[in-house]
C-alpha cells in the first residue's frame, strides 16, 4: 500500500487525528450493530456510522456528498428506517442465539477470511501512479464540479434515476396502499342500516369497551347489567384474533388486585 500516501494533503496531520479518533468509533458502532439486541439500537448505531462517514467525506474533499450524506441519508433514509421500526414494533428485540446450524461459524470464518484477505490484498496493491488529490478538480468548488458532471456527462443516468424513484413510489403504493374498493357508506346510510337491522337494540350504537368494567382498554369488553361481557363492545378483529380479554377479571363487583397486575 505504497504510493497511495497523499503528499498533497495540507490537512494531513489534523486529518490523521480525526481519522484515528473517528475510524475506531465507526467500526465499533458498526460492530455494535451486530451485537445489540434491539433493532432500534442498531438503527441508532447505523446513524452514527453514517454521520461519521459524512465527516470522512468532508475530510476527503467531498463536501457535497458529506452534506447529502447527513441530510438525505442520515436524515431521511434512516428516519424511514426508524419509522418502519416503529411500525413493526419498536421494542421488538432479536435473540442473538443462532438457530441455523453451522451458520455462525461459517459467517465468522467468512468474515475473518474476507476481512483478512481484503486487508492483505490492499496492502499489496499498487496503482503505478501517485495519488492526485482533489485540489484541481475542486477548483471551482466541489458542488459545481459535481454538478458539471451530473448534468452533462451523467445526465442520462440522472434522468433514468427518476424512473427509479417513480418505481419506488409505485411499489410502495402497490404494497401498502389499501384502495377503497367501494364507496364508504355515508352517515345517513349507516343510520338507516342501524335502524333497519334485525334488532333495534343497537340502534343507538354499540356499547363502548370497558363500560362497567374496571379497565377501559379496547380489548376489555363492556359488561352487561348482569355482569356478563358484551361481545359486540369489542372490535370484531380483536375478537377474531383472540385478543379479547376475559372480562371476568374486570368485573366491578369483585376487587381483584392481581388482575390489574397481570394486565
Amino acid at each position, binding site marked *: 500500500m505504497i504510493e497511495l500516501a497523499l503528499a498533497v494533503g495540507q490537512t494531513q496531520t489534523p486529518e490523521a487525528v480525526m481519522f484515528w479518533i473517528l475510524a475506531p468509533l465507526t467500526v465499533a458502532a458498526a460492530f455494535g450493530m451486530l451485537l445489540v439486541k434491539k433493532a432500534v439500537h442498531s438503527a441508532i448505531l447505523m446513524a452514527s456510522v453514517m454521520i461519521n462517514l459524512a465527516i470522512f467525506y468532508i475530510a476527503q474533499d467531498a463536501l*457535497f456528498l458529506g452534506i447529502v450524506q447527513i441530510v438525505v*441519508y442520515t436524515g431521511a433514509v434512516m428516519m424511514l428506517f426508524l419509522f418502519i421500526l416503529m411500525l413493526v414494533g419498536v421494542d421488538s428485540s432479536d435473540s442473538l442465539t443462532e438457530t441455523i446450524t453451522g451458520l455462525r461459524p461459517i459467517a465468522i470464518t467468512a468474515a475473518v477470511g474476507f*476481512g483478512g484477505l481484503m486487508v492483505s490484498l490492499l496492502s499489496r496493491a499498487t496503482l503505478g501512479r501517485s495519488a492526485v488529490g482533489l485540489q484541481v478538480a475542486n477548483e471551482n468548488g466541489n458542488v459545481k464540479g459535481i454538478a458539471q458532471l451530473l448534468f452533462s456527462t451523467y445526465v442520462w443516468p440522472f434522468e433514468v434515476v427518476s424512473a427509479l424513484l417513480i418505481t419506488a413510489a409505485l411499489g410502495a403504493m402497490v404494497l401498502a396502499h389499501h384502495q377503497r374498493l367501494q364507496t364508504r357508506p355515508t352517515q345517513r346510510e349507516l343510520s338507516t342500516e342501524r335502524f333497519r337491522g334485525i334488532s333495534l337494540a343497537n340502534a343507538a350504537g354499540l356499547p363502548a369497551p370497558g363500560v362497567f368494567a374496571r379497565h377501559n382498554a379496547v380489548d376489555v369488553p363492556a359488561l352487561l347489567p348482569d355482569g356478563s361481557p358484551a361481545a359486540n363492545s369489542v372490535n370484531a378483529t380483536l375478537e377474531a384474533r383472540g385478543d379479547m380479554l376475559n372480562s371476568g377479571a374486570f368485573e366491578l363487583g369483585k376487587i381483584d388486585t392481581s388482575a390489574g397486575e397481570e394486565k
Partner: protein
Amino acid sequence: MDAANYLYLSVLLFTIGAVGVVVRRNAIVVFMCIELMLNAANLAFVTFSRINGDLNGQVVAFFTMVVAACEVVVGLAIIVTIYRSRRSASVDDASLLKR
C-alpha cells in the same frame, strides 16, 4: 495521512455489513447492514475519487445514495408487507420455500 486507511476502513465496514446480513434475523436490521455495505462502497468511491483526483467517484457515490433511497423504499415496503402477513420481521420465519 495515508488515504489507503480509508480503504481499510471501508473494507472493514463492508465486512461487518456482510456479516450482519448473515447473522442478524430482523429483516430491518439485515437491510440496515446492507445499507452499511453500500456506505462502505461509497466511502471507497470517495476515497478513490480523492486518490484519482477526479470527481467521477463522488458522482457515483451520489447516485448510490439516490438508488439506495429507492431501494430502501421498496425494501421497507416489502418488509412491511411481510410483517403484516406474518406478524414477524424475522427473516428466518420466511422459509416456506426451500429445497
